[in-house]
């Protein structure tokens, strides 16, 4: 034991020691100090204003301004993406501008952009209207022209109105319209316009009903899609001309046009006037086009110049907002000239923090330095492990179950090896292991490139776990060599088999089998087993016993870690009344089973271990007969049974009583219990972590807790040991799947002479291996190895009720956003 005391503390085994620190900053240097601390990223601020609403805090205005600025930045980003402008963030042009200047600039840019957008919208609307006018002129002109030319029904463009009943009527209408009188005569008049194609039919019917049939409706499709000036979409439109007479009809028709959203444009009757007007309109259209293009160009240039700075500005605004949020967590002291903050920081980081504060003092030209000192606290500190990129993934696996209590033993230290190892026990095939190795090496070698990209969620997980995958692959190769499976094919790598035929002509190999004539195969499972009829009974027995042995070892490791925890926290009660009875109980039952397994293997006895274990309980004094493995077994079994039975009340009863005795000794005579310490400092800090909490000692609660803990352990000993049999089950499943794919896909396809069938078989084999074995089985074995760690291993010693250290760090903010 002294040996363990002399060892240096192991990295990653327990959380870094943390200190609660208090910062007193003059107001002028507060902003600088907080931003430098954000760059450093090693201090977790406590929120001293937790009970205040966001609007009651000191710097709420600044936070609002930052929010407004980030809204403007988002608007810019939106506009840039809508306009399709590609921007190249220019990291070189890092002009250091401060927040107020940025604010002014942003509002200028925003105003500019909004105005440009408004203008271009108006221009666009005018453009669409003119375009429609042009179309109306074109098509309606033809109606009027043909009406003047007396042409009747020959034009295919003219769709005759079916509402005109008689030919004579129509002719008479046309005759009337032929007169070259100005259209303000009370005779035939017309209205021309353009309407959406979808509404055209209803429009016609409405007009007919309104004018009681006294109208003539001509229409022609516009032929191309036109942008509707109102809705801004491209729709099919139809040009129409309505001939009517009378003022009332005119007003009715105009109202109906308005209701249907049809745009009316006046078309002159004479041909040359039409031509002139068309010419004018075309000129104006080309002018407008040029103006619109120039406007878009100008706007895109403005957007591009904004876009190059956008990334820098966004980061700056985010940082400022974070700084102000943090400043909101601080308190003003009595003199109102200083801000007081509290936070947790790792003890090793204190010099770095002091330096950052020193820089802040210098850069803010403050006369007074920042005060930085320790406080003691009764609160439990956050847990902080300094992980590198290798240990980070394993630590996250453990944290997913629960963050370690402060200075509790960290199972991640052992999980680095045991997790990939247990995975490999369930995955053991060195062919598949090589594939996994290849995959993980690809991820690791392209670390830098993949790290800077944004990956999909699946790739993100695979990238985060690349070192886990590497270890899993290496152990899988090792276990594959031991199980002697390369895509389920055994090899004779380590020498000759230990089995041969009984007689020279191998006549009874199918009945009595081979015989072992030399030492066992030096490394791994003998290749002669593969494909034999007795393969499964042998392998099942081997793997089941292997699972029990591995399980008992891992559980013992867990209990031993609880011993080290108890020693570190100077808790002798835990050692005497928890660790020792737990070890005794587990090992007198399942440790003894492991011993029996090893003895049976070494002696080659035919004893039935199920029988031995069961009758150890049912009939401990009975004679063992042919199940005797060693001399004195019966006596040993009786002793172990008694030890196990004694261990149960040992772990159940003494501890609560001892705790109660300790409690009464500590607070002897104080019938009131502990008061909160009223001797606080003169500058009374609210909500400081120094408040002592008065804890009640409730005996019944403690007793019930201990009972639950003990029952859980005792029953869990059996169930957890059995749970390790999943190592056998998954390994068997993997092996069988692999065999099936090999024999029924590859060998079957290879049996044919046809090259097409061979290639198809190879391809199907490759896909089946990749998807079923490499992906599904990997995930499955990963999950079960994880469960074994979380429940069976960590359940023996881990509390996992701590909270993680989350420092105020700009880097972490950036990661969180993504």
């Amino acid at each position, binding site marked *: 034991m002294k040996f363990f005391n002399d060892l240096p503390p192991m990295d990653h085994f327990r959380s870094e020691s943390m200190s609660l620190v208090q910062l007193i900053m003059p107001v002028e240097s507060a902003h600088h100090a907080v931003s430098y601390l954000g760059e450093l990223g090693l201090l977790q601020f406590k929120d001293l204003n937790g009970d205040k609403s966001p609007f009651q805090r000191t710097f709420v205005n600044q936070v609002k301004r930052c929010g407004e600025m980030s809204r403007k930045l988002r608007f810019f980003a939106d506009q840039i993406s809508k306009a399709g402008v590609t921007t190249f963030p220019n990291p070189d042009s890092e002009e250091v501008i401060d927040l107020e200047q940025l604010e002014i600039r942003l509002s200028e840019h925003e105003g500019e952009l909004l105005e440009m957008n408004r203008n271009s919208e108006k221009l666009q609307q005018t453009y669409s209207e003119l375009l429609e006018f042009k179309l109306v002129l074109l098509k309606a002109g033809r109606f009027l022209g043909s009406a003047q030319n007396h042409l009747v029904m020959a034009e295919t463009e003219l769709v005759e109105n079916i509402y005109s009943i008689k030919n004579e009527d129509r002719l008479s209408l046309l005759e009337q319209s032929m007169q070259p009188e100005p259209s303000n005569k009370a005779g035939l008049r017309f209205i021309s316009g353009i309407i959406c194609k979808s509404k055209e039919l209803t429009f016609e019917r409405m007009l007919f009903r309104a004018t009681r049939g006294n109208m003539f409706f001509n229409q022609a499709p516009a032929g191309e899609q036109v942008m509707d000036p109102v809705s801004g979409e491209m729709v099919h439109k139809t040009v129409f001309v309505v001939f009517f007479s009378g003022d009332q009809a005119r007003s009715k028709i105009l109202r109906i046009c308005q209701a249907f959203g049809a745009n009316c444009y006046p078309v002159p009757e004479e041909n040359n006037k039409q031509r002139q007007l068309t010419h004018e309109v075309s000129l104006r259209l080309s002018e407008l086009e040029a103006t619109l293009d120039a406007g878009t160009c100008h706007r895109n240039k403005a957007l591009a110049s904004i876009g190059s700075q956008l990334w820098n500005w966004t980061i700056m605004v985010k940082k400022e907002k974070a700084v102000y949020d943090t400043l909101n967590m601080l308190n003003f002291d009595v003199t109102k000239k200083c801000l007081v903050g509290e936070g947790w920081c790792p003890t090793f980081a204190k010099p770095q923090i002091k330096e950052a504060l020193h820089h802040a003092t210098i850069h803010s030209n403050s006369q007074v330095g920042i005060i930085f000192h320790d406080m003691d606290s009764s609160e439990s500190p956050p847990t902080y492990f300094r992980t590198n990129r290798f240990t980070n993934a394993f630590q996250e696996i453990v944290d997913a179950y629960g963050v370690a209590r402060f200075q509790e033993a960290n199972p991640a230290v052992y999980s680095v090896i045991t997790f990939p190892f247990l995975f490999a026990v369930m995955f053991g095939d060195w062919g598949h292991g090589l594939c996994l190795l290849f995959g993980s090496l690809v991820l690791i070698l392209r670390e830098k490139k993949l790290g800077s990209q944004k990956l999909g969620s699946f790739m993100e997980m695979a990238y985060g776990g690349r070192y886990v995958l590497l270890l899993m692959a290496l152990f899988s190769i090792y276990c594959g060599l031991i199980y002697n499976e390369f895509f389920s094919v055994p090899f004779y790598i380590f020498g000759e088999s230990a089995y041969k035929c009984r007689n020279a002509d191998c006549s009874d190999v199918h009945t009595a089998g*081979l015989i072992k004539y030399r030492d066992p195969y030096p490394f791994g499972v003998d290749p002669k087993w593969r494909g034999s009829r007795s393969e499964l009974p042998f392998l099942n027995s081997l793997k089941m016993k292997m699972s029990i042995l591995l399980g008992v070892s891992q559980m013992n490791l867990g209990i031993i870690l609880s011993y080290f925890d108890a020693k570190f926290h100077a808790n002798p009660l835990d050692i005497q009344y928890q660790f020792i009875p737990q070890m005794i109980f587990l090992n007198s039952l399942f440790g003894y089973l492991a011993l029996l397994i090893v003895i049976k293997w070494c002696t080659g006895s035919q004893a039935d271990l199920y029988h031995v274990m069961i009758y150890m309980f049912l009939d401990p004094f009975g004679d063992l007969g042919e199940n005797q493995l060693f001399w004195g077994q019966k006596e040993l079994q009786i002793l172990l049974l008694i030890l196990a039975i004694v261990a149960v009340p040992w772990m159940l009863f003494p501890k609560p009583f001892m705790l109660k005795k300790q409690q009464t000794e500590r607070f002897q005579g104080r019938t009131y219990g502990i008061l909160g310490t009223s001797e606080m400092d003169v500058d009374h800090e609210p909500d400081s972590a120094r408040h002592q909490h008065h804890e009640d000692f409730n005996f019944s609660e403690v007793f019930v807790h201990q009972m639950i803990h003990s029952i859980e352990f005792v029953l869990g000993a059996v169930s957890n040991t059995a749970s390790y049999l999943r190592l056998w089950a998954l390994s068997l499943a993997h092996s069988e799947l692999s065999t099936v794919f090999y024999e029924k896909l590859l060998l079957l396809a290879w049996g044919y002479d046809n090259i097409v069938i061979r290639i198809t078989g190879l391809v199907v084999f490759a896909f089946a291996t990749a998807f079923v074995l490499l992906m599904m089985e990997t995930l499955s074995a990963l999950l079960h190895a994880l469960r074994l760690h979380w429940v069976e291993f960590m359940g023996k010693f881990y509390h996992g009720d701590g909270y993680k250290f989350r420092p105020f760090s700009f880097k972490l903010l950036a990661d969180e956003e993504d």
Partner: protein
Amino acid sequence: MGFWMTTIVFFLLGLVASASVRLCCNRGPSTNLFHLTLIITATICCWMMWAIVYLAQLKPLIVPILSEGE
């Protein structure tokens, strides 16, 4: 090679691995202890796996009975 010889080989491999890790990445006593723990755990796991499979085949109760196809 027998059981004990191979066990000694595993032990020596573990020693070699820890020595090489100490030589190549010597970063202070606590980190060294961490690396040593990893190597010891790996060696023990690998040795256990091998030893279990070896012992199971030492004095087998059943022998391979070849199937008809072979």
